[in-house]
C-alpha cells in the first residue's frame, strides 16, 4: 500500500495544515510509514503553497513524488498547474468556490467541495482548510474521523474560542465528502 497526496493552494489558506494534520493523524493512529514534506522557498501570504503526504506500508522513498494518487487544490492556479501530475484513476478534490477550471481529463475523479463558501457560512474563512480536510476524510475514509478530529483539537485547540468552530467546520466537510461519495 502506498498513497501519495499533494495539497496545493494560496499561502494563507492553511494548505500546510491540511497535510500536517493528515500525516500527524496517520502517525498517531496507524503503523504506516508517513512523511509530510512542505515545499519551501519564497512563499508568502497570497503566493503559492504546496505540500506532500506519503503514506506507505514500506519505507517511504521520495517524500516529494512527481506523480501523485490524490490532489487537493484550493485555488484555480493550482488546478491548472498540477492536474496533469495525478495518476490515472486518481482523485482531485477541488475548492469549487475558487476552482473554475476542470481536470480536462476523464481518467480521474473530481470531488468539488465549495469550502470557501462553506467556511464563510460558518463565519470564518480561517477554517476552510478544516472543511476541506473533513471532506477528504468523508470521501476517502482514509483514517477514522474521530482520530482526525482528536488531532485537530490537539494541534489547534490552544485557543478555546476556536474549538467549536473547528469542530463545526470538520463536521460540515465530513458530511459534504460523504454525500459526494454516496452520490
Amino acid at each position, binding site marked *: 500500500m502506498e498513497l501519495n497526496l499533494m495539497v496545493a493552494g494560496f499561502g494563507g489558506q492553511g494548505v500546510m495544515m491540511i497535510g*500536517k494534520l493528515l500525516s500527524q493523524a496517520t*502517525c498517531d493512529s496507524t503503523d504506516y510509514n*508517513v512523511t509530510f514534506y512542505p515545499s519551501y*522557498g519564497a512563499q508568502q501570504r497570497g503566493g503559492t503553497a504546496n505540500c506532500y503526504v506519503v503514506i506507505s506500508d514500506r*519505507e517511504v522513498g*521520495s*517524500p*516529494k513524488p512527481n506523480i501523485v494518487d490524490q490532489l487537493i487544490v484550493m485555488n484555480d492556479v493550482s488546478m491548472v498547474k498540477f492536474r496533469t501530475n495525478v495518476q490515472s484513476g486518481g482523485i482531485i478534490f477541488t475548492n469549487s468556490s475558487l476552482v473554475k477550471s476542470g481536470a480536462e481529463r476523464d481518467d480521474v475523479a473530481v470531488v468539488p467541495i465549495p469550502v470557501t463558501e462553506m467556511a464563510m457560512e460558518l463565519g470564518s474563512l480561517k477554517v476552510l482548510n478544516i472543511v476541506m480536510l473533513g471532506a477528504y476524510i468523508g470521501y476517502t475514509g482514509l483514517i477514522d474521523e474521530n482520530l482526525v478530529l482528536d488531532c485537530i483539537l490537539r494541534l489547534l485547540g490552544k485557543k478555546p474560542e476556536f474549538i467549536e468552530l473547528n469542530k463545526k467546520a470538520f463536521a460540515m466537510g465530513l458530511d459534504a465528502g460523504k454525500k459526494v461519495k454516496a452520490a
Partner: protein
Amino acid sequence: MSNKVFMKGCEAIAEAAVRAGCRFYAGYPITPQNEIPEYMARRLPQVGGAFVQGESEVASINMVYGAGAGGTRSMTSSSSVGISLKSEGISYCAGAKVPMVYVNMQRGGPGVGTIQAAQQDYFQATKASGNGGFRMIVLAPSTVQEAVDMTYQAFDLAERDRSPVLILGDGVIGTIMEPVVLPEMKSDEEVAALKAKNREWAIVGHGRDEKRGYIQPGYWSNDMQEQHCRNLEAMYERWEQNDVQVEELFLEDAEMVFVAYGTSARIAKNALEMLRAEGHKVGMIRPKTLYPFPSKAFDHINYDTCKCVLDIEMSIPAQMVYDVRMAVKGRCPVDTCLRSGGNLIERDNILGKAREILTGGAN
C-alpha cells in the same frame, strides 16, 4: 510503537542533541536548517544550557570552539555557504582536538546555490572541510529516525576522539516530518559526569598542582606538528577499521549495484524494490558514514554477475563517484545517475537509467 512522535527532521536532530547532553549551541540563520536554532533557542534554556544566535557564522563556530574547549557538549549547524564560512573554525577544532558536532543541510550548487535539497557538498564534507588536510567522521542520515540516532551517537564519537563530527543532511531530511522514536534523555548527573571526564584536557580552571588543560590549534615546533599530524592519521586509520557504517542489499547475485546516500538512497531503494519485482537483480550499497567510506563493502559485490555499479547522487558533476571508483578498483564499469540544483532525483530517473543499462549491456 506508542512512544513514536511525528517530528520535523531539524527539530528531531535538535532534540536528539539535547538528549545526548548538548548544552551549548551557537549558530546563524540560514534555510533549510532554521528549525535547528529555533528549537535550540527554546529548548536549551529548559535544561540549563545556553543558546547564542551569533552575529555571523564565523562568530558562531568560534563560540562552539570555545565551549567545546571547555568540555561542554557543543553544536552548530548551517547550510552549504554558511558551512564554508565556518570552515576556518572547524579546522581549528580539528587541529586543536576540540570535540563538537555540526550539521550541514546541503543546498544546490556553488555560491548561494538554491535553497532546496541537493548533495553538492560531498567533497567539502569528506575531503576538505577546512585547511590542513584533516578528516572527520561524516554521518549521512537517510530518514529522520536515522538523523536522530546519528546525532545522538555523534556526540559520543566526537568526545571519544576529541574531533568534530559532521551530520550531512539536505533540505529533505531537514524539512520532512516523519514518525520517530527519540533516544533516552541523559540525566543532569550523566551530563555533569561526561563534562567532568573531560577535565583531563578541557580548559576548566585547574589547580596549581593539577595537570593543566591546554588547547592549541598549531605547534611552534615542526617536529611536534608532524607528530600531531601522524597521531591524527593513526586516528583516521582506526576509524577505517572500526567506525564504518553501511547498509548492503542483495550484493551476492546483483547484476547492477546502486550506490547512494541520504535522500538519494531512500529514492534509490524504492527503485530497487520495483526493479527486483520485475526480475532485475539489483543490489545496493548505502554509505551511512561518508568518511570513513565503506570501501570494503565493494569487495562483497559478485563481479562475475555485476555489469555495472551505478553511482546515484544529487550532485552535478558527481562527487562520491571518485570514492566509488577507488573502491570498485576497475572490477566493473561505474556509471552515474545525477540530479541537482534543488531538483530531487526521481524514481523514474533511476529506473530509466537502470533499465537502459540492464537491457542494453554495460556502457
